């Protein structure tokens, strides 16, 4: 039995106790992501507010996990949702099936579908992971969304300020996982996301109110 080794070990652990901790105070402080992090999808718009998606269903075909369902429909002259002939009448992604490989992003001819760095999608119900068009589409007032290769410094605009220490994001100034500009309705401390069904509960009380 090597007695010296025991004391060396004890000295090591004691030294580690005094060192700076690697832990990030996660829900309150967030770490910056890798430049091309594959997280939750979003459907982008053009600058005039029209949807980029033309309902071609190529993402659905490219998807190795069969997570995407697209049902296209014809644009009508008095209600043009996208510049093309067709638009996505239904666009659903089952985020539980999704493997976040980014093939949809590559397949998309109009750069409509992209993967954002949002990753906090936890919920108590499986049904909440089927993201429909109302939750995927960038709200008109929130801009057009950003293509993956346009992200400045690899971090999208709505990620907010990046804290210098530990390269983290302050969520007070930063982003929420499903936050889409001003779309969140906050009532009685609960956060709702408006859907076609009208106000589906997404998550419990949050400290942060949906800002601009």
């Amino acid at each position, binding site marked *: *039995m090597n007695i010296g080794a*025991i004391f060396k*070990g*004890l000295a*090591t*652990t*004691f030294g*580690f*106790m005094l*060192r*700076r*901790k*690697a*832990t990030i105070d996660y829900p309150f402080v967030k770490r910056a992501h890798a430049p091309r992090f594959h997280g939750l999808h979003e459907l982008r718009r053009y600058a005039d507010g029209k949807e980029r998606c033309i309902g071609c269903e190529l993402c659905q075909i490219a998807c190795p996990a069969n997570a995407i369902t697209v049902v296209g429909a014809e644009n009508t002259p008095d209600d043009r949702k996208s510049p093309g002939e067709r638009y996505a009448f239904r666009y659903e992604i089952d985020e539980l099936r999704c493997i976040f490989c980014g093939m949809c992003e590559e397949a998309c001819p109009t750069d409509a579908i992209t993967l954002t760095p949002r990753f906090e999608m936890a919920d108590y119900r499986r049904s909440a992971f089927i993201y429909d068009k109302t939750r995927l589409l960038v709200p008109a007032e929130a801009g057009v969304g950003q293509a993956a290769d346009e992200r400045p410094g690899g971090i999208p605009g709505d990620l907010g300020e990046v804290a210098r220490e530990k390269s983290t994001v302050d969520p007070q100034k930063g982003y929420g996982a499903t936050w889409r500009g001003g779309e969140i309705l906050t009532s009685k401390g609960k956060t709702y996301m408006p859907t076609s069904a009208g106000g589906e509960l997404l998550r419990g009380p949050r400290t942060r109110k949906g800002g601009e």
Partner: protein
Amino acid sequence: MIEAVPLWLLVVIKSLVLLIIVITLFAYTMLAERKVLGYMQLRVGPNKVGPWGLLQPAADAVKMILKEDLTPNTADPIIYKAAPFISVFAALVAYAVIPFSQGEHGPWSIANVNAGILFVFAITSMGVYGISLAGWASGSKYPLLGSVRATAQMISYELAMTLSVIGVVLQASTTSLSGIVDAQSRLWFIVPQFVGFLIYIITAVAETNRVPFDLVEAESELVAGFHTEYSGLRFGLFFIAEYINMITVSCLATLLFLGGWGGPGAAGHPWLGLLYFVIKVFAFLFFYIWLRGTLPRLRYDRLMAFGWKVLLPLATLNLLVTAIVVALWY
């Protein structure tokens, strides 16, 4: 005022107060362990429940109480259910004689027994029953293996432990715990009994089945050892027993080798003495946690060889030398 209260009532009140203190101490020892281990692993440990995670023990207790209390079909139900209580009982009863400070009317303890050290060893040895019966009555192989290991280990190391303590008893020429502390008023026994002290702390770790001698619970081999089948509050009781035993052996180490409540200015100031006592006990508890954060588990045959071939002869030799010195020069 004290004379007006019947003795039995006084003992009951003292016991209740001490019980609450010890259980609270257990809860925060556990939290301290998680915190210190976290710090040693560059983590911060539990810090979300209450300020700095200080309410974590309460959350753990609620979780433990709400869990289902399972009894396996193959278990012997009566013994299976009784085993955790034996463990906790043995762990708690030791506190009946442990003095914490010295007041005007004698030591601060529930009972000032003149064979205190014998009582403590007799009672803590009973803790083996809790563990071995738990493993045997579970009717499952891993608990059985765990408890066989526990029994063998605790019996083996208890010999060396007792021998190391006898050195102290010889030198103090009393078996009363407060008497042993009084005998250290000039020099703590850690100096003349340094070998005994080393043997005591090693065997104390083994007695409480903690890392690096935690073969009883060896997760990687035995799932959870003797308490594999236990859940809910019964598991919690084993947990309580383990930590209380840890506190007991720390108290004993303080009393036997570190001068108990003795310290600068402690004579005549019982509260200061109590503070010294608590600081010393916490130092020992920290050492235990530190060991756990550092050392890997011993192999079983090496554990046994170390106990029988190193510690026992060393303790015997120490006892022999002490006896000769005490006989010739005291």
